[in-house]
């Protein structure tokens, strides 16, 4: 009496087809994003290498030149994209993990370059920020740091996931005596642990208030 049973099969084939296409597109764009991150990282690596080479050649650079070669802004945007990718692809995705390690290395290198600019007039203010997985206070202080970075463009925050298996990072942490209590901030070589409000942060960094503040004037 009923002869259209085959439509179940057709419907199944079409639905599977739609799913395969959707998965293919999802993967395709995911790969493109990873590629973009990778390209950005190698570009930054190249720029940092170039800056280091300039240092090595000249012994010392003139301040403006050196400041131009440092790419913290681009590192920031790369960091945001990595955070987003961690959320989307999962923090244990091997490709994201690898990009994250490379990003941490680039941060350390950038930080070292900045340190060499000690005597320049417009010296950036740096914060090393160590966080860990499963740390509620880290999430909170993350918001504070994001806020400060938006408000004070001259502030350079280097954030590191302590749980990342990277020997250079372990060395950096041990130089600053970072231990198992997170979040940890290193400001002017001093260790600060636990959550800090915006006002507490401002108190730790008095030079912020004198510097050109307000987010309305981007000065880079």
């Amino acid at each position, binding site marked *: 009496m*009923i002869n259209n049973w085959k439509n179940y099969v057709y419907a199944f084939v*079409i639905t599977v087809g739609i*799913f395969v296409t*959707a998965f293919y597109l999802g*993967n395709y764009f995911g790969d493109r*994003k990873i590629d973009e991150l990778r390209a950005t990282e190698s570009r930054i690596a190249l720029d940092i290498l170039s800056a280091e080479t300039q240092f090595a050649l000249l012994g010392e650079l003139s301040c403006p030149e050196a400041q131009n070669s440092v790419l913290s802004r681009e590192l920031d945007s790369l960091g945001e*994209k990595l955070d987003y990718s961690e959320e989307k692809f*999962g923090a244990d995705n091997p490709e994201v993990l690898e990009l994250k390690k490379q990003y941490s290395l680039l941060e350390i290198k950038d930080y070292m370059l900045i340190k060499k600019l000690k005597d320049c007039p417009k010296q950036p203010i740096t914060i090393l920020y160590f966080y860990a997985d499963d740390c509620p206070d880290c999430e909170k202080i993350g*918001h504070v740091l994001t806020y400060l970075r938006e408000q004070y463009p001259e502030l350079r925050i280097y954030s590191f996931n302590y749980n990342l298996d990277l020997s250079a990072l372990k060395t950096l942490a041990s130089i600053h005596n970072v231990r198992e209590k997170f979040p940890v901030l290193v400001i002017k070589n001093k260790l600060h642990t636990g959550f800090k*409000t915006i006002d507490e942060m401002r108190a730790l960094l008095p030079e912020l208030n004198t510097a050109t503040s307000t987010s309305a004037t981007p000065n880079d």
Partner: protein
Amino acid sequence: MDQLSNLTLYVTFFFALYFEVFMLINFFEKRISIQTEEARTPEVFPSVTIIVPVFNEERTVTKTVFSLLKLDYPKDRLKIIIVDDGSTDSTPAIIRRFRVHRRVEIIRKPNGGKYTALNAGLAITNTDLVGCLDADSFAPPDTLKKIIPYFENEKTMAVTPAIKIHRPDGFIRHVQSNEYNLGIFMKKCFSIIGAITVTPGPFSIFRKEVFDSLGLFHEAHNTEDLEIAMRMQKNRYKIANAHTAVVYTTGPATLPKLYRQRVRWIYGFLANTIDYRSIFFKRKYGHLGLFTLPAAIASIILFFISAGMILWNIFVMVEKKITEIQSVGLRFHWPDFQFDWFFLNTDSKTFLSVVLFAATVSLIMYGRKISEKKTRLSVHTLYFPFVYTLFSILWLSRATYAVTFSKKIGWR
């Protein structure tokens, strides 16, 4: 949690897409014969009785009865029975005016519920066909003529119309208007695969012999129009759908009223489905027993799980926002937004949602196209899937709760 949430979402997507694709395939396979159906005109005019059950319907009953009197059908072949189910307002006085029409008969009985009113009308019906028209609905003149040709097939025992919201005004009625258009398409597909489970109160027409051999209307959890269709399915009676035979209904104007109506419908559907559970997974009931009824139950379960997941995700989002407010205070500020495709959500779920959304919108537009030959996309159709999903959480939860704990659901 994330893995589980992803898995449920994919299962739900697959299920919903499969269902819509299946319906579209069946529809397109039959589109030629659907077009032939549309061109038919009645060759014979069987005698018809339309029963109008009324209970405190003083504001709408006149329009309903007038629409029946104006039906384009031989006058001596159409009879109208108005059954006043013990109205306490001015309804009796209003319907008395129709006594001047020889075709109109009026019965007054003590209040006993809609199904008793219908049965009182059936008791004095002696025509070939019998139908019912709720007093909140009315039929354009050509509706009956479009239904009659379907009875040329001797196996067809009942024909359902295409129900639409009359001139939707306001948000709640626009939502229903889209829902009814989606329903028109779905009903057509269900009729193609022989799986109609409701012969709605507004203008479903039956062969009188249905009631002679299967018995009268039952109370049936306040959804007698659902029960009779299931009873017919159980006895493998054919129910057809006349998708061009438009009937207009008004539809509740406010969310609370709509909510009460939907809770009653879904409760009725679930309770009647439980009563007729013997239809499930039996080959002799065809697509109804093997696919559409089990699919309806499965979709309710999946809907709850997915809705739970969505609510959980919203909860997590709110919690994150609260953490942010706790740490930096409430800041209304727009970050210097620069478009970067990187932050566009391009995972497979996004593509599946787009396909599902497009499929749903096209089903609604098809419903509109086959019933009124209009294809313009309305803005209300675009937000309908989202709004309707949210609303459905309300009445599905309430009705499921009532069925699970055997709570009675009233009429109004």
